[in-house]
């Protein structure tokens, strides 16, 4: 039963069903679903630029999806991806701007990435520590930490780091900027897809290795699946919980790197645009499996950019309906088994 192919087909069924429902809504709004689908295809995967736009969003979604999926395996629900993403983006932008212009590209990029991962990681680990030390429910603490992150980044931006008469930080030094896929390989002409794009599936593969092949992942899955037995087997749950929340935050940090070093080159309010929250949906759709995160993130990336691209014909809200329906469908199908 539990290993039946249905388990792998389920997300596919859910996505297909949600897409059909979406088309139905399009039809009800008085548009031709076939025509809209064709337009959607042309605007996204039908062109190099469109594909790049989709993949750019997919990249951050893979990271924020992993940031939810990994703690999930230890029975921790990380709602804090958005806050971790925001702080990491801010840290990357400020660090990148403060670096000397003469610094060579490699250390500049690494330092920026380090700043992003540290900021996100500490924010995640904080929730883990609150859980382990004081028993604070991680859902509550990560939501609160989201608020704090948003307010903190907003305050620092407005009163400390905003460029005169603008609402964003200084641009990062050119050497800290990540080259676009266009410059690197001539792919996805002019789109914001950049060097972090190949990094994302690599991170997913690494996460899968960690979970299913490493001793640490073995312990993590054991304590997530049967905490009492794990304690009897001498597994230290506290360390694992704090660590995995830290790793989650650091992964969200890499998602921020995609936005800052790869594309916008500075921090401004609204830069993260809820990609941290969408990560929750991605992880749910993927059943918290690191490798399934990749197609799930692609699906959400497609809808997020697709919604923008055909916004002139149908309201973007329809795409939000499809996203939400896919998630509900997965949960319902899961509950039925």
């Amino acid at each position, binding site marked *: 039963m*539990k*290993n039946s192919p249905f388990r792998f087909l389920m997300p596919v069924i859910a996505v297909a069903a949600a897409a059909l429902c979406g088309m139905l809504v399009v039809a009800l709004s008085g548009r031709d679903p076939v025509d809209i689908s064709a337009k959607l295809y042309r605007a996204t995967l039908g062109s190099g630029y469109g594909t790049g736009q989709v993949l750019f969003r997919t990249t951050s979604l893979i990271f924020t999806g992993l940031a939810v999926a990994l703690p999930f395996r230890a029975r921790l629900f990380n709602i804090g991806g958005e806050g971790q993403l925001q702080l990491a983006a801010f840290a990357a932008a400020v660090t990148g701007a403060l670096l000397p212009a003469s610094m060579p590209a490699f250390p500049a990029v690494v330092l920026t990435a380090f700043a992003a991962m540290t900021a996100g990681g500490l924010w995640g680990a904080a929730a883990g520590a609150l859980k382990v030390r004081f028993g604070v429910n991680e859902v509550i603490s990560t939501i609160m930490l989201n608020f704090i992150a948003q307010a903190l980044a907003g305050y620092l931006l407005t009163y400390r780091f905003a460029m005169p008469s603008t609402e964003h930080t200084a641009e990062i030094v050119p050497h800290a900027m990540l080259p676009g896929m266009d410059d690197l390989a001539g792919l996805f002409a002019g789109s914001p897809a950049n060097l972090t794009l190949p990094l994302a599936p690599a991170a997913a593969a690494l996460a899968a*290795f960690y979970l299913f*092949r*490493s*001793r*640490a992942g*073995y*312990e993590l*899955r*054991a304590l997530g*699946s*049967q905490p*009492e*037995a*794990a*304690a*009897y*087997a*001498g*597994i*230290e749950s506290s360390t694992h919980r704090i660590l995995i929340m830290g790793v989650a935050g650091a992964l969200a940090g890499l998602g921020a790197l995609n936005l800052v070093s790869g594309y916008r080159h500075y921090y401004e309010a609204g830069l993260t645009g809820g990609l941290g929250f969408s990560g929750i949906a991605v992880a749910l759709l993927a059943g918290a499996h690191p490798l399934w995160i990749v197609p799930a993130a692609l699906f959400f990336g497609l809808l997020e950019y697709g919604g923008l691209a055909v916004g002139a014909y149908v309201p973007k809200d329809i795409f939000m309906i499809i996203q939400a329906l896919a998630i509900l469908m997965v949960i319902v199908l899961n509950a039925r088994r």
Partner: protein
Amino acid sequence: MEVMQDALRLSGVCKKFGTIEANRNVSLGVRKGSIHAIVGENGAGKSTLARIIYGMHRPDSGTIAVHGKSVKFASPGDAIAEGIGMVHQHFMLVPAMTVTENVMLGLENKPLFSAIPMKTASACIRRLSGQYGIAVDPDARVETLSVGEEQRVEILKLLYRQAGILILDEPTAVLTPRETLNLFDVLRSLKNEGKTILLITHKLDEVLALADRVTVMRQGEITGTVSCSETSKEALARMMVGRNVLLGVDNPPPSPGKIVLSVEHLGYRTAKGVQKLAEVSFKVRAGEIFGIAGVEGNGQSELLALLWGMHDRKGAVSGNILLGETDITGRSPAAMAALGVSHIPEDRLKHAVVPGFTVSENMLFGRHREPRFRRGAGFNRQEVGEYVKKLVTRYDVRCSDVDTIRLEALSGGNQQKVVVARELDRPGMRLLILAQPTRGVDIGAIEGIHRSIIETREHGAAILLVSSELDELIALSTRIGCLYKGSLRRIFTAEEVEAGRSDILRFGQEIGLHIT
């Protein structure tokens, strides 16, 4: 026999959960106005039976009659309507509400927006309290009450609903001795007022002190119903814990060596102040099996938890546990394992395995830190594969593919074989702690497990065996300690046990004297 009508009559009740038969062909008559006890070990099926009577479970087959009328309960609501009430082991009270509010809660016969007749209810509760000698202040908030008082509120709830048949599930488990006596007075006065009481328990003293008749359950079946005036603790204990299978394990004379485990004046008091263990002292030598006999709930769980460092740290520990010369009191499970201690916990599925993991992963569970299994950050898959294959063959674990089949898909016997194999194979093992090693295991597998335990002893490990199966203890143990109310009451020497093995029935009764 038919002078008084039965308040409750069950005929041929069966209930299965998955493949486990929790109740098998249970037939039982409870006389009106009597206190009827149902005794049995944990897992004997008495709680399931209580839930069936209370409408929480539906029986697969069989019939239930209340006061001669055949009934079919779809929910506890139906049972309540027939005058059946139940006091659960864990109370169902709202702490922030008063006694009166709690008693009234769930009275569905009032229109939704009508005023609650609080004064009348309060007066009614006062009257009931007086009538049955149940002392409790109707206006006190439940969170301010003691456990004993909370229980009285639960009983008042049933009386307020005019229940004629009261089911109490392990009512004294949470009570102090004084509160227990108080409860008995209440139950006696309820009986004198014509109420029928069904008492679910495993404490034989209480049964004999209080009940009129007692039904003994074992492994889902009723082994007998007797009148309390015509039975004894020993006879009941025998009915409860005996297992009439021939235990044909060959037990050659042991040759005990150095002392491996010394437990010295061990005591444990819970955070709530209940003394669970007091002055427990014993030693286990290399090459011997020290058995601990006792009816469940007499401190076995606490002793096992202390030995594995898994006790509730809020409680107070006194005395020492030594492994060889090293004091290991309160050490963590990982530290114990590293010192060469293996442990097979009593609750296998909860504490010994991860049911959702594969058989291979479970074979490694708790031993995954051993250097031989490591490679880089992961596992040496070849080494693990060979290790698992070796143990699966040697312990005859029936499983088609150890790398894909989840442990939860195996039978209880095969699950336990996985645990036994993993723990007995631990390199450099000096001490083996076994708790109920054959519980829920089919007879075929029991023999194999017993043989492995004796073999482990022959290899020079010290073994502590906690079991509620007297036959098993007598067959395997070198010496046997009798645990009763948290203290070791009597330790049978190797000679006594050896002599006892020739007449297991008589020896079992002798042990029964010391554990009840």
